[in-house]
């Protein structure tokens, strides 16, 4: 029945008052360009990992900016670092650095056992 999970009345609201900025702040302090995303999806479309999996780098970035860091740990692992996203980004966001920073911050939080 698991394919009908979506029918369960689980709230999918973005709880903005529970904003978890622990990763976002870390990234923004080190990569300001991350702020300028307009969610055009060019990165996800060209993504080598996204070609093979459900990896969606744009959505990861958007979740972070909405203060949600759930399931990020498994998702961000999928990136292959090939750099195509960075090469197509119309906003010149240094996406490879964003991924590196997210990975680093998650590793930090995991070692502190707070994630």
């Amino acid at each position, binding site marked *: 029945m698991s394919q009908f999970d979506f029918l369960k009345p689980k709230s999918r609201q973005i709880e903005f008052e529970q904003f978890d900025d622990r990763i976002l702040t870390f990234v923004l302090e080190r990569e300001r360009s991350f702020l300028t995303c307009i969610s055009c999806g060019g990165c996800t479309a*060209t993504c080598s990992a996204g070609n093979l999996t459900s990896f969606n780098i*744009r959505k990861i970035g958007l979740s972070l900016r909405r203060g949600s860091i759930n399931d990020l740990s498994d998702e961000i692992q999928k990136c292959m670092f090939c750099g195509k996203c960075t090469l197509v980004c119309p906003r010149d966001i240094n996406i490879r650095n964003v991924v590196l920073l997210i990975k680093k911050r998650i590793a930090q939080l995991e070692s502190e056992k707070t994630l």
Partner: protein
Amino acid sequence: MTEKRNIAIIGAGIAGQEAASVLAGLGYKVTLLEKQERMGGMLNKWSKLFPDFSSSQQILDTVQVSANKNLSVICNADISSITKENGRFELSDNSSLKVYADLVLLATGYNLFDATLKEEYGYGVFENVITSVDFEKVHKSGKKLTTLLGKEPRRVAIIHCVGSRDAKSGNTYCSKVCCITGVKQAIEVTRMWPDCEVFNFYMDLRLYGSKYDSLYLEAQKHHKVQFIRGRLSEISERQDKGLQLKAEDTLQGRPLRMNADIVILLVGMEACEQNADLCRNNTLDLDENRFFKSKNIHYARNISTQPGIFMAGSCICPMSVNETLESSRSAAFLVDKSFRSVQVEE
């Protein structure tokens, strides 16, 4: 008092011609300089205009000027330098042409973005990838848009923001007219081929003008044009010369692959490369998008940073046809005002 009435206008597109006829009508001596063989400029490349599908030829015919005692036209004059000496401007091209004037009006217009620079979109590599200007050419010829092999397209994709709002192309500004052009061309494709599916790929739809939204509505309602919010990342070619597009349907949050027979790239407007040349030997300046800089973008949009040089049309920023014409009339008014104030002082 009447000697100082010579005006040189660079560019005989619709902006230059409109200003020329207004100023000549006011009794000034106008020299209209055009780098091409004939007047009309970029509008010559267009077939029909948004939002009403009126003929661009009609506009060209309406603004068309002809030489008279107050107006002389010099074609094949590629002005590359403006110098001010003894209170007069000297305009010269790379050969021996020299034109003197008391005031200069820039109406140099724009360039089209070179779509080959966006190599991942395959323009110049895959034959079925064309630009919006190529489409206008087909439309103007009265023929129907077909694939390279002459077949009826079953699906056409129209790509917004090619060379606009794209740091990688070096243009971070919005060209403003492409969105509505995309809607117009989508309708024109379905009018050519009623069974053809048309998809517009956009980042943001910027349909700012009067009656533009009704055209958008018409495209959806009567022509089943579909709009996908996602920036195209790349195009590849299949064995049969059909195209495969990769984008993300950002509203779905999933990457999307689509086959299409023809892709139309809505190429943006860029400042002319010669603008930089014209800024030498005077205090003309360019803005961050390489268009001519206005003294003030609100109340002095047509006034350049060099006293005595005015601007009209899309050499200031991307403009539609009606904005261009308004801009050049406004420029003509300011030129006239400037002459009058000089006369009062004298």
